[in-house]
Structure formats: C-alpha cells, structure tokens
C-alpha cells in the first residue's frame, strides 16, 4: 500500500537547488545519506517487470519487491556473486514459491546494475510522525567496465495511511516544476542505458490497418516473426533456458503458417522455397524440444509413480539428459551453419526488398481486411468439419490433424488480431484455446508414451538397473495412458462449445463479408 513516484532532475545542481526550495515550503527532517548497489535481475522476457515485481541482488541478498503494494521478500544467499539462475537453484522457501509463480522455468539474467547515492529526508506532521519520504538519488547506471550514465532522481514515497500528505507532497513537487518520470527505478534505469523494459514478447504484436495492402501487411507480420527468431537464437546457443527454443519454434511455425497466406500475393516460388526451408528448421529442433519437455517434467513424473518405482527413473533421466546434450549441440551447430544463415538472410532480403515490377501479383494491393476475413472463415469451416467427423472410432492421427488445423486457425487469428475489436477477438481466441489445450494435452500424452516405449527397448533387462527402469517406464506409460483417456473423454464437451452458437455468432459477426 506504499506508493512511490519518481521525478527526473537535470543534474546535481538542480538537485541542490530543488532541495533548498522544497525545504522552504515543507517541514523536512535532517538529511540522511546512504549508498546502495543493486543489480536488477529478470527473465529474458521481463516477466517480473511485466507482473509488477522487481528483483534485485544487493550484496548477498536477493530482494523481491511487489511494486503494487510496496511489500518485499528477501533471501540471503550468504555468498556474494553466486547468482541463482533458476528457481530450482534456490532453497525451498516462500521466496522461491513466489518467484516461481511468476518466472516459472525461465532463467534469471542480470539486466541492469545501478549504484546510487541517496539523500533521504522525511516529511513529518505536527506530532513528529513521518508521513512521507523523499529520496534524492544520484544513480550511476551501467554494467562494470562499460560506459556509465548518471541520472538524478527524486523519489517521493508514501507511508501507509497518509495518502493526503503524499498527494500534497507530490503536488508541491509538481508545482515547483518537476514532471513525474513514469515507471519505476528498473524501467528508468534501463531507459538511461538506452534499453526499454519489457520490450520483448513472444506474441505476434503487430498493428495493422484494415485498408493496408495485403502484401505490406504480410511483410510486417513475417518481419516481426523473423525478429522473434533472431532474438532467440543466442539464448538457444548459449543454452540459457528452454523457452528460447520454444519461442523460436513457435515463430518458425507461425512463419510457415503465414506462408500459406501468400498465394496470389507473392510469387509461388517464394512460398515453395521458404516453406521447405522453415519446415526443415522446425524439424531439426523437434528432438531437442521433446527432450527439454521430458527434463522439465522430471518432478511431475516422479510424483506420478509409486515410491517403489521411482529409483528406476534416474537411469532413464540420465539417458534423456545425455541425449539432450547431444541434441542441443547439433541444433546449435545448425543455427551456426551456412545453410541456416543463408536461408535467414535470403528471407530477410526478400522481406525488405520491394519486388521487381514484373513480380507484383494482383493480390498484393488488395486491402488486408478482405484477406483476413476470408482466410479465417475458411480455417474455421475446415476445423468444424474435421471436428464433427471425430467419434469414438477416430484414430490418434485424426485428432492430430484437427490439432494442426486449430493451430493454423489460432495463428491466423493472432496475425490479424489488430484488425478486429479487441474484446471480441480475444473471446474467440479464448474459446479456441480451451479446445486446443485439450488436443495439445492429448497429443502430448501420445508422444510421451511412444518415446518411453522406445526407451524400454534400449534398456538392458538382464541387469537390475535396467529392470528397474523398465518398470518405471512401464508405470509411467500406464499413468499417461489413463490420463490420455481422461483427456479424450473431455474432447466432445470442449468441441461442442467451440462449434456452438456463441462462437458461430462471433465468427459471423467478425469475419463475414470482406
């Protein structure tokens, strides 16, 4: 319930001058000086920042602040410089649980470091009670060794239960000519370092215009997906966490899906060439992603098994970990290979260069809204048709086909989201997601069972350890099979909701006409 508001001062002189003026109008206590050094940590996609948290390392302490209510949790690591990378590296405690609920499996990275000299003053009332705090901060922003920027800030901090006094204080500050900086110390410091807080997202975040030519709109969508791929390459190679590969793969799949839109807009040869190349890139990363998922689920798998069978998982996971190392090495080499670089460079060149006059196809100039409505409609119809054909006798393959179709529909909706009223299209996506989750989980159970069957054949049944692992794998397969059946039994309910009148109404409303 404590609020904090930052104001930016031009320089150190401005600070002294301002302090003098403030003291003339407000009863402020003596100044107290302090110094602090903070290293801000966050995930690559700034999950903490986006959810309103700040995580800092101060000496050997990790401090997690909730900027919403001013509360904080801290954890002493008792050793400087040993920065944890994952939640699982921390001891079991409420701090870890809180952190995990926000960052999940992502790694913590150092984002920006600051060294501040703080002059602290209190605003007191007639009883000598502190009713607000003022901090003047000279903040040096930058990592060790690189160029440092110094910024001068004034922070006004409220005390719980003294809202009026805080408002009076910030009014005084504004009246004396300072404007609020907006944001918190993390975003302000990042800004000073020339970066932007929370600027990475794995979502398709393009803003299109209904009248925009289709060719231009597709280039924007594809360009944004290419950027997502590029941004994640480094994290994959350095093996920072599993989500770099995940985001990369989603961008590749979305690209392939967007390429199915280009008929009549870009030359047919473009589609054929790049569809094949992106399919290849996706395929080469399948193995690594599958193995990542296994390793992430170790805890869950252990829980699934009765204690007596659990020891058999260790050799199994040893194999998976070794295979994963190898798969990672291979895919990192792939990303560094000439053929990959050439594909990506060619692709970028195509997206950036306007086509030669003879290449322009008539569809390129048509307004994108027509393309969006038509293609989404078609996908929806196809998904409905496939779904209606599914009954008790349908194979895993049929469900797989429907899953892929739903994915394509989802991607189209996301590409063109900005063309439609936000509330309604989000509602469509939400409904679709309910069905997709069911299909995704079903497929997941299938893939996991198949893989475990593969491991059984590799185990040596004549050794004790091998037998234990076979038992563990067998136990998991039957658990997964039971789960899969349960998921399958929920399919019809979910599909009916997707195929129901409400969705039909929404689709008609949003996507009819052109």
């Amino acid at each position, binding site marked *: 319930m404590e609020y904090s508001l930052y104001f930016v001062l031009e320089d150190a002189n401005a600070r002294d001058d301002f302090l003098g003026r403030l003291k003339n109008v407000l009863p402020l206590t003596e100044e107290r000086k302090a110094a602090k050094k903070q290293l801000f940590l966050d995930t690559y996609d700034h999950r903490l920042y986006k959810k309103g948290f700040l995580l800092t390392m101060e000496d050997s302490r990790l401090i997690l602040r909730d900027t919403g209510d001013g509360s904080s949790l801290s954890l002493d690591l008792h050793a400087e410089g040993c920065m944890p990378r994952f939640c699982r590296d921390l001891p079991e405690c409420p701090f870890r649980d809180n952190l995990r609920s926000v960052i999940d499996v992502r790694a913590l990275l150092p984002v920006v470091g600051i060294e501040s000299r703080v002059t602290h003053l209190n605003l007191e009332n007639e009883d000598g009670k502190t009713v607000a705090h003022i901090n003047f901060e000279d903040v040096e922003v930058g990592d060790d060794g690189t160029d440092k920027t110094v910024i001068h800030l004034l922070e006004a901090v409220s005390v719980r*239960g*003294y809202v009026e006094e805080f408002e009076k204080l910030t009014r005084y500050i504004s009246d004396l000519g300072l404007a609020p900086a907006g944001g918190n110390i993390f975003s302000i410091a990042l800004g000073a370092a020339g970066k932007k807080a929370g600027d990475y997202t794995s979502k398709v975040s393009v803003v299109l215009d209904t009248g925009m030519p289709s060719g231009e709109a597709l280039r924007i969508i594809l360009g944004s997906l290419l950027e997502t791929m590029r941004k994640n390459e480094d994290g994959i190679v350095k093996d920072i966490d599993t989500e770099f590969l995940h985001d990369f793969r989603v961008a590749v799949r979305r690209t392939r899906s967007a390429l199915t839109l280009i008929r009549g807009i870009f030359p047919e040869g473009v589609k054929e060439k790049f569809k094949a190349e992106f399919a290849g890139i996706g395929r080469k990363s399948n193995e690594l992603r599958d193995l990542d998922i296994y390793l992430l689920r170790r805890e869950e798998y252990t829980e699934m098994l009765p204690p007596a069978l659990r020891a058999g998982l260790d050799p199994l996971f040893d194999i998976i970990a070794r295979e994963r190392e190898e798969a990672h090495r291979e895919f990192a080499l792939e990303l560094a290979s000439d053929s990959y670089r050439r594909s990506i460079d060619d692709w970028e060149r195509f997206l950036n260069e306007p086509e030669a006059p003879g290449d322009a196809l008539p569809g390129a100039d048509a307004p994108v809204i027509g393309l969006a409505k038509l293609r989404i409609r078609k996908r929806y119809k196809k998904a409905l048709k496939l779904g209606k054909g599914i009954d008790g006798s349908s194979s895993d393959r049929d469900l797989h086909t429907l899953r892929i179709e739903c994915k394509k529909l989802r991607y189209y909706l996301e590409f063109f989201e900005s063309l439609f009223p936000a509330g309604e299209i989000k509602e469509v996506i939400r409904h679709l997601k309910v069905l997709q989750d069911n299909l995704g989980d079903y497929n997941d159970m299938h893939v996991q069972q198949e893989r475990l069957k593969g491991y059984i054949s590799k185990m040596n049944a004549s050794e004790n350890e091998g037998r234990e692992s076979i038992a563990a794998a067998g136990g998991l397969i039957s658990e997964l099979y039971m789960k899969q059946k349960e998921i399958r039994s929920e399919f019809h309910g979910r599909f009916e909701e997707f195929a129901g009148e409400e969705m039909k109404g929404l689709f008609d409303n949003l996507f009819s006409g052109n």
Partner: protein
Amino acid sequence: MITLALYSMKGGVGKTAAAVNLAHLASVETYRTLICDLDPQGASSYYFRIKAARNFNSSKFVKGGRNIDENIKGTDYPNLDLLPSKLSYRNLDLALDEMKNSKFRLRRVFSEIEHEYDYLILDCPPGISLVSENVFNAADYIFVPLIPTTLSVMTYEKLLDFFTKKEYDVSRLYAFFSMVESKKSLHKEIIEKIESGGRNILRTRIPYRSDIERMGVYREPVTAFLPQSDSARIYAALWEEIRGITGKGGAEG
C-alpha cells in the same frame, strides 16, 4: 499470520511497553508486523505518534473489511504498521455485542488481513470483558505481564480459573515478570515461588527501568531509540523466547 496478545486484567503492568517493543523487534527481523491498539487510552498509538482518522470508531472497527484496510497506518519503521485506537473503543464491548457471533467477531475481522502480516500483536485494555474474550478467541498466544506482587499474582490466578471455567486452552497462556525491582525482597520471594511451581512462565524478566518509562517522552520503542541499552537487550531476549514459542526462526532469510 500469528496473533499474539499482550493482556492483563490489571492495568499499568507494562502491557503496552511490551507490545510496542516486541512489535518493533519483530519488524526489525523483517517480519511483516501489525500492532493493533485495542485500548481506548491509545498508548501504543501515542508511542508511534499515530492518530486515528476522525471518522474512525469502535463500530467501524468491529465491522472490519475496508474500515481496517483504510485505517492501518505505517509507522516510522519498515515492516511495522499500526491500527490506532479511538476513545470510542471504551464502547467496544457494546459494539461487539451488537454483532453476530460476538465472542468471535475480532477473530473474523483479523482473518481478512491474515495474508498481509506475519505477526499481529494485540495491545489489550485491562479488565475481563467481551473484548477480552474476543482476544482469547483471536489470539494464538496470550502473554500476561506479571508484576511480582501478591495482588498481581492473585489476578493471574483468577485469569487461569476463568480460562479453565470457560474451557479456553490454558496452554496458549504465558506469563512473564514485568516491572521487576530486584532490590525488593517481596519481588524476589514471589518470583521464586511462582517459578518453582508455575507452568508457562517465561525466563526473561522485564525490570523496572527509567528508560522504559521514558518511551512516553521520546515516543519511540526503547529498542529503536536506545537499541544498545539493557532494556532493549532484555526485550530482545523476551522476543526471542516468544518467537521460539510461535515456532518461527530468527531474522528471516
């Protein structure tokens, strides 16, 4: 949230001094702490220089909800908030009596803030009343400061009888000696007698000290304005004992 009550049937035994210093010590160890002043005299509010809002009163307090949230005030110490009392708390019994399930009303009021704080410390008014019964139902542990005098010990025994009669769990009730003057032979005799026979008597004894009395002048906990003093050290020992009883460790994280 763990709720601790500083309670005594008798007034002037050092309840507020203990409540204020213990709350401060908990907050220094980074436990999120709220001290709730239940005494219409508002001594603990006074020590923290906090006045309740003009429109706050005992009926609003027992209604709870937003009334609590809006009237909690931050003290001058990190992690330490206070819910100030009003003179109208002299009618707290009546206000409680009007509520359903009136003996458990405060427990209900406090349950709404249980995720916000690690410790809630109740500074209770003297006497035995509906307010006290609410305290006994709301608190996880009740600590009674005991001046080693015959009268004081008698009232404590009456409290024990009351607990037994009303079937409150006596094991949650603890006593500690307060305002002890080691030169007085009567104090010594009573302490020896009680300690040899009594259960749930804390080891730490709070002496009669002028610096504790002076809290009213400084309007700060003695653990804050004289942290190196003997008095502060004794409260720290008391806090350590109490924290141990509540099952929490020292200086979190």
